[in-house]
Structure formats: C-alpha cells, structure tokens
C-alpha cells in the first residue's frame, strides 16, 4: 500500500491572520500544518497499521505539500506523526496559483512519485484548508489524475482493492465505494489524530525533506501560478471593527432586554 497525504502550510487560526497585498501573509511565526490535515495523516497511518506486518513493511506514507520553504513546518509535523517520506514542491512559478494550479501541482507530484517507485493507491487530504476553506482541491486532484474521489469521509474502510466511506452531507447520510487507486478526503469527525511520541519527535528533526521544482514535475509555468490562474485577487481589506458590544448583566430582566433589543432593531 502506498499512500500520499497532501498537506498544507497555513496561518494558525488562533493567530492574527492577514493579507499582504492580495496574498495570504504566510508569516513563519504563525505558520503551521493545517489542523484538518492531521485527520488525513491519521487516516493514512491507520490504514497501514491495519496491514499484516510484511505488507506494512513494504508500504509507505508520503507527505506532499506545495509551499515555499517555510512549509517545512507542516512536513516536520507530518514526520512527527509517523510518515515515511516528505516532499515539498516549491517554485516561484507556483505563487498565486488558483485551485486548478494547486491541484495540477499536487497531481504532478503524485505522478512523479509513481515514476520513481510503486503506484500510489491512495491520495488522502483533509476536508479543507483552514485558510481558504474551498474544499475542492481533493476533487480536482482526482480529476487531474483520472481517479475517483470519495470526499468528506466520516468512516473509512479499505479492503480488497476497494475504498468504502460513510459520510454526512447536508442532505443525506451516504455510503460510497470506489476501486483503488482513488482520492479520499476525510472529515474532522473521522478520527482523533495521534499525539506524536518522543521518539518520532526527535527523529523528525533530522529527517530529509525532498524539494522539487515545477520543472522537475514537468509543469508548464504558464499554466500554473499567477500566470495560469483563471481568477485574480484584486483587493483584500480588514473589515471595520464591530461597534462596542451592548452588554447587559441579567438581574431578572436580561431576557426582556434581549427581546427589546431585537424588537427595537427590527430583527424579529
């Protein structure tokens, strides 16, 4: 079993997130592994943990990211959780990529891994990246690779070359199946990511991170990054602060005060 987990380097949601110009400010001081990717890493590791020992030995989990060099933070964290290998795709030509440019780079990374080794059975991602919250890259990576996508899985099962997932959509509870190789995204309800143990934390410090460029992957610089993007950010501005909160301490009339506020402002 060979699994690639696509991870993203994002600003910590607890930090003061901002834009520089029209691009997300990737201040390394607050950059971290997208929290939802921990669910993806956990899902990958659990699939391997369930294999018989000889199969486990022959298996591999690779963390793959498209990021500048600062993105190594996300890959180190992936090593701490227990991945075997980490690859960063870095290129100035990729800056300003839209969803399609990002998906093309990730898919090219997967294909490159396959050229150098065994076929990749599964590409796993988190349900979203907490900076952009688009949730569409998994489906686009699958489209680029010509593989089925099973997204937002709450429960994951791999058996006999078939991936089966259960998921909760806005409309329904569904069970879906697809043959491997496939692309999978897992919901934050899928599992509880493991805490890195001391041994892995120490080992992660010295593990080698491989860096590939866009040309290494055969990507056309005109088709990715800002040059190939089909949307272009034209402004980013912080919202004005909300006016001071009107605070009432309930001494028996708090509910009435609330109702009067809503009625006064024609909200009910």
């Amino acid at each position, binding site marked *: 079993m060979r699994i690639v987990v696509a991870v993203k380097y994002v600003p910590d949601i607890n930090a003061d997130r901002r834009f520089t110009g029209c691009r997300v400010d990737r201040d390394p001081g607050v950059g971290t592994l997208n929290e939802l990717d921990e669910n993806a890493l956990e899902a990958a590791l659990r699939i391997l943990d369930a294999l018989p020992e000889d199969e486990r030995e022959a298996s591999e989990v690779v963390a793959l990211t498209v990021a500048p060099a600062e993105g190594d933070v996300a890959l180190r964290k992936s090593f701490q959780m227990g991945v075997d290998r980490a690859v960063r795709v870095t290129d100035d030509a990729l800056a300003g990529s839209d969803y399609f440019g990002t998906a093309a780079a990730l898919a090219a990374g997967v294909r490159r891994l396959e050229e150098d080794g065994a076929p990749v059975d599964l590409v796993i991602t988190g349900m979203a990246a907490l900076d952009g919250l688009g949730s569409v890259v998994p489906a686009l990576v699958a489209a680029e690779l010509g593989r089925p996508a*099973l997204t937002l899985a709450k429960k994951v099962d791999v058996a006999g070359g078939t991936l089966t997932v259960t998921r909760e959509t806005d*409309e329904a509870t569904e069970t879906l199946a697809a043959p491997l190789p496939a692309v999978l995204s897992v919901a934050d309800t899928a599992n509880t990511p493991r805490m890195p143990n001391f041994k892995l934390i120490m080992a992660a410090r010295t593990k080698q991170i491989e860096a590939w460029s866009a040309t290494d992957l055969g990507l056309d610089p005109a088709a990715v990054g800002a040059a190939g993007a089909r*949307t272009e950010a034209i*402004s980013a*501005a912080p919202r004005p602060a909300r006016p001071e909160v009107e605070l009432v301490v*309930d001494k*028996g009339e708090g509910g009435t005060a609330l*109702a009067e506020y809503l009625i006064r402002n024609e909200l009910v």
Partner: protein
Amino acid sequence: MTEPTRVPTRNRTVLVLLDPASEVRSGTLELLTIARGLGRVEAVTLEAPTVEALAQLGAYGVETVHQAEVPTDALAAAGGDAARHLPPVVAATLAAAVRRTDADVVLAPATFGAKEAAALTAHALGAGLVIDAAAVGEDDEGRVVAGKRVFAGAWDTRCVVRADVAVLTVRANAVVPEPADAPVATEVDPLPVAAAGTSGVVVTSREVKERAAGRPTLEEAAVVVAGGRGTGGDFGPVEEFADAVGAAVGASRDAVFEGWFDRYIGQTGVTIAPRLYVGAGISGAPHHRGGMQASQVIVAVNSDPEAPIFEICDFAVVGDLTDVLPQAAAVIRKHREG
C-alpha cells in the same frame, strides 16, 4: 463591492443550478436574483421540477429549465438514482448546459456537493472558479467580480474572473430574493448528458435526512439560534426561543460531539451568514467563529462574563440561558401577537 446592477450591462447567459428540484429554497431564489443582475437566467436540474418549483422559477424570470437526461446505464453502474446527485454527474450536466447555451456564468449554492460539482465543471470548461462568494458583480470591462468574506469574517477580498466562463458558488443570505418585475412562462428542455461517468464511484446507500418541520434550514435561515456546551445538553430553551423568532437551530461542535445535537456551525461544519445570529451557552472558540462571524448582527447569552464570543457581539446578556431565553421568547411572542 460592485453591487449587481438591476439592468445587466452585458448580454450574458447565466445558468443557476437547481438541485434538488423538488423545491425551490430561499438560497436558490437568491441565486436567481443575483443572476438576473448579470444577464439572462436559465436553470439546470438533474430531475423533473415540480409544478410549484416551475411557478417559482417563472416568478423569478426563468424561461428555460435544462433537465439532464443522464444515460440510465451510467446511473445504474453508479448505484442507481442516488448517483444522480454525485458531483461528477452534476458537473457533466452543468458543462453540457454551458456548451449548449454558450453561457458565461454558472451559479451554484454553497453546499459541499455543489462546491465539488462547480469545481469539476470549471475544470472541464477551463473556467474561473470562485467558492463561497458573498457578492457578485462586474468591473468596468464587464468581467465578473466576486466578493468573499474570509478569515472568520475578519477580511473582505475581491477577485476578478479572467476566463471566458465564470463558475461561482454563492453563500446563502448574500442578497434578499426579489421576484422579476413580471412573471414568465417556464419551459423544461431536455438536456442530453453523454459523458456522465463517475470514475468508478458507486453509491451503495443513501438515507435522506429529515428536516425539522416548520423550521428553516440552517444554511439558508435569516435568523439562527445556536446552543453550545452551556446548555448542558438541554436544547429546550434554545428551541423555544428559536421558534418564537422563526429561526433555524444549530449547535457548536462541542455540543454535537457530546451527542446533544446533530449539526454544528463552524468552519468545517455549516457556515452561516444570517441577518441575526443568537448564540446561547457558546464560548466562541475560533472554530465556531469561523462558521458564523460573517453574520450581520451577533447576539450572545452566556453565564461566563469572560466568554470570547462577547468580543464579537453587537448585544450580549451575561446570565443563565434557561432564565434569559424563555423570558425573551415570551416577550417576543407577545410582541408578534400584538
């Protein structure tokens, strides 16, 4: 933000995804309202619209509904009728509709399924993609411009679509739905969709969720009341208050993980931007704020005066929600009756 003009400056064709087609929800009416500001509006469905749905589409100025004719063997291979709503099938339908009508813009709701379908449509067409637009307009050159609210509602961004076709998912409550000046007759036009494969995805079971009767859907409601850990598991006061103000009910992720409620508001759950949000017993963790901070008016009730949610509120009551909410509900019921 460039507001949609009432009279479109360009002769665009705008397709609106109608899925499911059994009812036209307020979110779809909002999409149709935005679409009319951009050009001539047509709808795309995966199944036959009901008579009521057709009447509503007519009232909103839709003359043509393109109804997908997906080969039955393709559907059968993917698990039957339930496969109709899989993103690859929806995307093949939207792409076929764009090719047939030479449409310039596709608008879809902001559900996870519609987002994937929109992405796959744009991928197939080489179109520009915007996910979760909060406003849609155009620039001086007539290019589609979308506004988004990002970083838990703290920043406004705008982007322009550079490709010939723009595919956008639009979040609920972006505009107030407005019918067309005069209703039109709506015709259903069969749309053959040849390449509707699912790349091997098979739906093995699908259980449609029952919606709480008499309450609006969480995604689309203009007023939302949410309960958190502070409810201690009793959503009675939250539901009583919600019904008094005609609101949808939601919860924090904590409350759902405790098993007290089934759907949570948050950056990975349901993302909402209603006219009024009322949070009861919710502290306001970053995860929750990421799903509701774009709400127009934010009200909170919490017994902890230090709750972080108070920092982003317009109005707040420090108190026990089991006292405050029933009292407020009683005053509002009386006001509404009077």
